[in-house]
């Protein structure tokens, strides 16, 4: 699924990387626990309600490049700056974690485990 389709399905806005929405993604992982993200061997789209600079740092360490923030959370300027340095894409949806995951799963995004 392209990021453009994800953005449309989630009624989302793009916080960073609006020029990269043609990118295809297949796998998704949802967590507010960054320790869990650091155990991943793959590099899925991350769905999270944790919106702070450690979310971006963790993604940098784990080589994750696409983050969907749920429940209307918006990244701060510091987060966007750090994410930009790492060529990341930040997407913001007003939907809850549960609804976001349900929509993405129903649309064919795959789980890692």
């Amino acid at each position: 699924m392209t990021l453009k389709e994800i953005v449309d399905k989630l009624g989302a806005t793009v916080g960073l990387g609006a020029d990269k929405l043609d990118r295809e993604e297949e796998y998704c992982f949802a967590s507010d626990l960054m320790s869990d993200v650091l155990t991943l061997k793959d590099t899925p789209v991350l769905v999270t309600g944790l919106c702070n600079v450690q979310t971006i740092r963790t993604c940098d360490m784990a080589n994750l490049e696409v983050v969907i923030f749920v429940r209307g959370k918006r990244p701060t300027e510091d987060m966007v700056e750090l994410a930009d340095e790492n060529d990341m894409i930040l997407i913001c949806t007003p939907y809850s974690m549960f609804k976001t995951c349900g929509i993405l799963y129903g649309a064919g995004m795959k789980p890692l485990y």
Partner: protein
Amino acid sequence: MHQEYTVIEGDFVNAGKASSSVKKTLKQLNVNPQVVKRVVVALYEAEVNAIAHAYGGKVIVDIDADKIHMVVADKGPGIPDIALAMQEGYSTARPEVRDMGFGAGMGLPNMQKNVDKMNVTSEVGVGTTVEMEVNFN
């Protein structure tokens, strides 16, 4: 190549700066990306621990042609029972650490999984030193 970084107690905004810098260096040296990920995940976990649990400390990194050696030495309360701390799920993290997405008792075990050699020494009331090594090949 020798690099040193200072970590400051409670400075979550800068947690990961040392790991991020090491990542850039290893990428420039064309180290296998999967190995780079193992190194930086382990180092980042250790860095977060020093910031979250101790009163700050140092990250000392030595990069050779075939391996990286990392030491994260903190001044802090120390770990009374290292074997217990190594158990997945055991945590003494404060609520503010959990608010940052950490503190689930996964750090030390995850560090162990990502490195080739790891040694933890600790003295209660003095501090903890984590020494890790990852081979590039």
